[in-house]
């Protein structure tokens, strides 16, 4: 007597749970029950759990009966002829979808040879145990699993041909790789996912070697000449949205070139790219502080009196201009309405991004690196046949991470390039290394993939043989151009008068508490004081009351808050933050009396 639950709700009992479960499975395979129904028999608790709800992940498996796969040679033939499709196999009960619960009752064989009479299912492909992105890593089964995960994560950040209609889209921050290529070493998933329709990398000639240390600690060296010919070049798109907001009293924003009498008018130079409608003209090369969309807003605090006195109403400038360090070309302008029916202007900026020092690159094996140097082709080592690598990768990156697939892809890529074919690196079903080596030998190269190299600068032959081949490299979307920032002087915070923080506010890098400690530990007190002078002020302090006074410009003298004009005042240098602390103490009702003393 087993209890039956449907979607975790009690339904009733059944005397023979095993045959009940089999019946349901059979009806599903016949098509009487939906393929989305799964059943799980728990023998320990004597429960049968049926599931038909949404949100479970299912995966397809080939059904095995008495140690024989139901998928026959005939099926495969028909599939190849195009007579039947995948869905027909599901309908015929050759393939079924099972969920995590039902999988507990199943014994799945990875490959056909492993099957025994106990097995209930067979994997469609042994690589089906991995997800989509993971299956895109070639030769993945030669790797440590953690590297596989990193490799699949990196691919999600790569630049590519993300949408064919990119030129009419208004995506937030999108990147487009120029001349994307299909990988020389592919997996079956690349075909299934139609990767040739949206590739995201380029097949580069990669040499695994050192070169003056510019690729140490996960750096990569790029061939400057290749980059100049368009290697890994991309375009960065960034939209700017401006809408006309409505305010109380029927007042509205207005998108237009602001008049000169508007409050906060910048300078004529800043508005030079605007057309009569207040929007930049396409193909205008804008940079830092140039206005992209001109806009004026009604005054902020309108008193009831001002409403009648129109002459007093001065509109406020609220144009959108490029921030510090930004630049680009006005690419595309859209005039539309937002959800509330207000006028909305979108301007897309375009910027060509050539690879530069600091840009991030990766292979598909979790071997990411940052460009350390761009070297002209003439100075880069070249092979006997005159091949110059596009990218130089460091050998130290391989030993500790044990990414064998990285090395195999290099070999496979070389074979593919020489034979003019695509090499298959599908998980567990990849082409064998020996076969690839053999093919390489047939092509007239050393079978281990190494070649003699000559230093481009001296022409001298290198002592070591260099492992060189073709690899699919991806450009990742972390580019220095978006992150680089510096400051010597700049904006400060209103409250503390200390420099602002963060790139968006053109902020400084904080010399924090522990950094301060290192100065003290070195005994560099006076240097430390100068580092903290960013908010230094000189305040007049009353020597009698010990309170901070002020300078009365009309009377041209210092005033003490307690003793007035007759006080003996002295200027004291302190940090503004400390002055703020004194003010806060006063607000607490504490009298912080400064006792002054002559400095010398």
């Amino acid at each position, binding site marked *: 007597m087993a209890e039956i639950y449907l979607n975790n709700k009690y339904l009733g009992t059944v005397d023979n749970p095993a045959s009940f479960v089999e019946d349901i499975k059979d009806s599903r395979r016949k098509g009487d029950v939906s393929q989305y129904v799964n059943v799980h028999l728990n023998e320990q608790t004597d429960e049968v759990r049926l599931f038909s709800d949404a949100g479970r992940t299912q995966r397809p498996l080939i059904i095995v009966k008495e140690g024989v796969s139901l998928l026959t040679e005939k099926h495969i033939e028909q599939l190849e002829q195009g007579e039947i499709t995948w869905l027909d196999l599901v309908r015929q009960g050759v393939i079924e979808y099972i969920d995590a619960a039902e999988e507990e009752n199943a014994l799945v064989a990875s490959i056909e040879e492993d099957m025994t009479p106990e097995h209930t299912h067979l994997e469609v492909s042994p690589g089906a145990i991995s997800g989509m992105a993971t299956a895109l890593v070639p030769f993945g089964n030669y790797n440590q699993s953690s590297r596989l995960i990193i490799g699949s994560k990196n691919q999600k950040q790569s630049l590519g041909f993300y949408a064919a209609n990119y030129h009419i889209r208004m995506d937030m921050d999108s990147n487009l790789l120029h001349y994307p290529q299909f990988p020389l070493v592919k997996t079956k998933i690349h075909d299934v996912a139609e990767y040739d329709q949206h590739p995201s990398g380029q097949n580069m000639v990669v040499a695994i070697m050192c070169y003056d240390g510019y690729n140490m600690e996960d750096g990569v060296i790029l061939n400057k000449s290749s980059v100049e010919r368009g290697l890994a070049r991309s375009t960065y798109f960034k939209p700017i949205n401006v809408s006309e907001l409505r305010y109380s009293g029927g007042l509205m924003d207005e998108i237009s070139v602001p008049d000169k009498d508007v409050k906060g008018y910048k300078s004529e130079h800043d508005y030079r790219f605007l057309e009569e409608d207040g929007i930049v003209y396409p193909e205008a090369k804008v940079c830092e502080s140039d206005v992209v969309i001109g806009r004026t807003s009604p005054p902020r605090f309108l008193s009831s009196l001002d409403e009648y006195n129109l002459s007093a109403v001065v509109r406020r400038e609220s144009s959108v201009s490029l921030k510090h360090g930004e630049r680009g070309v006005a690419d595309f302008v859209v005039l539309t309405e937002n959800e509330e029916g207000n006028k909305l202007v979108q301007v897309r900026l375009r910027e060509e991004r050539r690879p530069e020092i600091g840009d991030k690159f990766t292979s598909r094996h979790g071997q990411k690196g940052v460009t350390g140097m761009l070297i002209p082709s003439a100075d880069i080592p070249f092979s006997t046949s005159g091949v110059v690598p596009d990218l130089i990768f460091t050998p130290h990156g391989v030993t500790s991470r044990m990414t064998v697939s990285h090395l195999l892809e290099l070999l496979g890529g070389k074979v593919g390039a020489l034979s003019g074919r695509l090499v298959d690196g599908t998980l567990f079903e990849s082409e064998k290394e020996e076969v690839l080596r053999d093919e390489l030998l047939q092509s007239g190269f050393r079978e281990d993939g190494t070649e003699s190299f000559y230093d481009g600068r001296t022409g001298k032959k290198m002592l070591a043989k260099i492992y060189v081949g073709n690899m699919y490299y991806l450009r990742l979307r972390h580019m220095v151009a978006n992150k680089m920032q510096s400051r010597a002087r700049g904006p400060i915070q209103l409250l503390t008068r200390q420099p602002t923080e963060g790139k968006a506010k053109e902020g400084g890098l904080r010399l924090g508490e522990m950094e*301060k*400690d*290192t100065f*003290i*530990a*070195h*005994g*560099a*007190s*006076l*240097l*430390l*004081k100068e580092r*903290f*002078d960013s*908010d*230094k002020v000189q305040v007049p302090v009353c020597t009698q009351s010990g309170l901070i006074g002020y300078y009365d410009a009309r009377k041209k003298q210092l005033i003490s808050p307690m003793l007035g004009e007759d006080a003996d005042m002295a200027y004291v*240098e*302190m*940090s503004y*933050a*400390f002055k703020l*602390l004194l003010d806060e*103490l006063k607000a*607490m009702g*504490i*009298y912080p009396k400064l*006792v002054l003393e002559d400095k*010398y």
Partner: protein
Amino acid sequence: MKHADLIKEYEKDLPLAVLDEISALIPTSATKPQVKKIVEETILLYKQARVHAGECVGLVSAESIGEPGTQMTLNTFHFAGVAEMNITTGLPRIIEIFDARKTIKTPMMEVFLKAPNNKDIEKVRQFALQIKATILDELVAEYAINIFDQTLILRLHKELMADYGLTEKDLLKSLKTRTKGYNVSSGDGEISFTHKGKAEEIKELYILKEKIRAVKMKGIKKITQVLPVKRGDEYIVLTSGTNLSDVLELPEVDPTRTFSNDLYEVRAVLGIEAARQAVMNEVFKVIESQGLNIDVRHIMLVADIMCVSGEVKGITRYGIVSEKASVLARASFETPIKHLVNASLEGEVDKLTSVVENVMMNQAVPLGTGLPGLVTKMK
């Protein structure tokens, strides 16, 4: 010693330990001017090795302990050579010591025995069992309540009793005082309790059972576990739970080496100098077990600071931080409002003599380049 007199002349310039070392190392063939030269050279080196005025040793110590601390594996419970005994080490223990916690996670002692006894494992084991606090519950195999007779019967572990060297009589003796109002009798490995006079409720027997369970039969209070271990060529006893004063009174114990890891207990029993050494030893033990390399002098400084007042004080807002002279320095550590309000009530004056308050005001810190002042003669 050949040049003892000569070396003695330098007593004011060098510490005695250094002078002793010199006189031990000087070859007998050395002439007087040679010895003089050696000592003078030593004085020079000694002076150079000393910390300069204005060197902020505290901060350097803090950094030197703090930085390796970041590499310490958190929460490693590591077995000090033996199973069964779990001792807090790693960062949790370091924090425990520097905070000078009153109750520590795993109090323990290392009991050393005097010469003839410490080589014989059997004797050491016997001693260990002797000091272990044994409660009745451990000796009882079964508690039985006879509802009909209204009696509570304890069946005892005979072998265990023999191991501990206890007899039924001993048990009866220590139990009798606790069980007034009951008739207690024993025989054949059993102890039975019957209510004197008319028994009221069976519940009372249950209460009695729970009451007598934890009654100490033998050993030293608070020592819950003992473990004899080999240390070098002798056997010592590790205990979990500490009771230094009672253990030191035992004649077998070597009081010069036995110690506890409870700083307050060491302070109470052995005095503040011992507590200072205990802080150093305990911290150093952890650092060593983590394979880190921190100069002892940094730890010495911390131990000194913790013990200067004569009591062990932690580096907390209730401990040594509360003794800082500057209000602003105290306020910048923890609970600023409390310190500022109290200071204002007392009319405290901050002389701005230490680091934090000067950093706050953007003044030169009185250390290193900020220390020297200028003296001029005004005409």
